[in-house]
């Protein structure tokens, strides 16, 4: 029962949504739309369980006084503060927006900009023109990097156009080929899930 019921659910709902797509009857369309609405609502619970886990892990860390437990207090304080601001004051305007604009946006942008340093240092160590393929990668990367800054234009006026061509011709061609492969793989994996062949997402155990 613990295996069969979930497998019936995945098969029924999955194939119903697919079949409903090809049957232009109102009853099928409405039912399919309802399931999609439910699905959109249910996926919110995945984040709620994630937040519940963050709270659980950090409370546990504080209770046991594990290493760096003091930082968990800060994390929990700001989590509660942000949630309080959003649920009490609403998601638009007020304290919630203020925190988003003056804390989350700058922190997110700075975190990602930090990667510029690490990517640059990793590239310095990894970029070696040992083979023709590696040389191609190196040349393409250098052209795109130079061509996207004003100095590239001053070195050679054709750089921006060359970058545009690289992005829209060889880059598009290879990405499209990879995309076809990835999409076909994804579709076959989706069919495996719907048919109950792939079950690893349900967790371990046969029961």
């Amino acid at each position, binding site marked *: 029962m613990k295996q069969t019921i*979930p497998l019936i*659910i*995945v098969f029924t*709902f999955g194939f119903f949504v*697919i079949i409903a797509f090809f049957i232009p009857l109102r009853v099928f369309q409405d039912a399919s739309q309802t399931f999609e609405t*439910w*699905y*959109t609502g*249910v996926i*919110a619970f995945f*984040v709620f*369980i994630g937040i519940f886990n*963050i709270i659980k892990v950090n409370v546990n860390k504080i209770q046991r006084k594990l290493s760096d437990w003091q*930082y968990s207090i*800060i994390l929990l304080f*700001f989590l509660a*503060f942000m*949630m309080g601001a*959003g649920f009490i004051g*609403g998601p638009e305007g007020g304290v919630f927006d*203020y*925190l*988003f604009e*003056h*804390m*989350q946006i*700058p*922190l*997110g942008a*700075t*975190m*990602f*900009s*930090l990667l*510029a*340093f690490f*990517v640059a240092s990793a590239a310095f160590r990894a970029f070696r023109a040992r083979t023709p393929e590696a040389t191609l990668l*190196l040349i*393409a*990367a*250098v*052209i*795109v*990097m130079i061509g996207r800054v004003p100095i590239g234009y001053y070195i050679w006026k054709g750089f921006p156009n060359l970058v545009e*061509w*690289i992005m829209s011709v*060889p*880059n598009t*061609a*290879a*990405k499209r*080929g990879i*995309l*076809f492969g990835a*999409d076909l793989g*994804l579709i076959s994996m*989706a*069919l495996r*899930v*719907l048919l109950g062949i792939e079950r690893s997402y349900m967790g371990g155990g046969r029961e």
Partner: protein
Amino acid sequence: MSTEIGVWIAALLTLAIYSFLYKDNPFYKVAENIFVGVSAGYWAVILWFNYAWPNLFEPLIMRGSVIYLIPIIVGLMMFAPLIPRVSWLIRIPLTFTMGVAMALVILQRIQGEIFPQLQATFLPLSGVSPMQLISNLLIIFGVLSTLVYFYFSKAHRGVLGVFAKLGIWFMMVAFGASFGYTVMARISLLIGRVYFLLHNWLQLI
């Protein structure tokens, strides 16, 4: 220098994150934990107001549609592992979402990606400028050779091997271009943060 509290908060947090470039330190750890807390809180609020409330709770509470109790109960089953005896019930929300998500993946990928991308690859080889003709031929050969590289049912020898090799070259150019593009995107974020510090906070430029 700015007199706005919000600008000061953002500037100090920015500096705290950049302090990691020297080495891991308490300032960075504080900023990192604030980021996790604020982000988690933000997404909880956004998902509630944009997903859970309008799709499940609003129809139930405001319109009295009792049928919406079903997805709410299914959603609450996500917390089943907290009670070991009924922990297997988590499989119900998992399989429900997987079922609908996989169905949507199949439909969206075929309709929204495979067909449009195929259509975009059927490019004209006549009535175009010589440069455009070369570009169109390169796109067609690029797509085909990349696909050949991922065809593993036959050994990559002879013509197939040449095509597969060509596919590697196309992919190397694409990876290099993507790498350069990503680096420049990060650099522009860095410039944005430095500009914020010098312009909005210190008001030097």
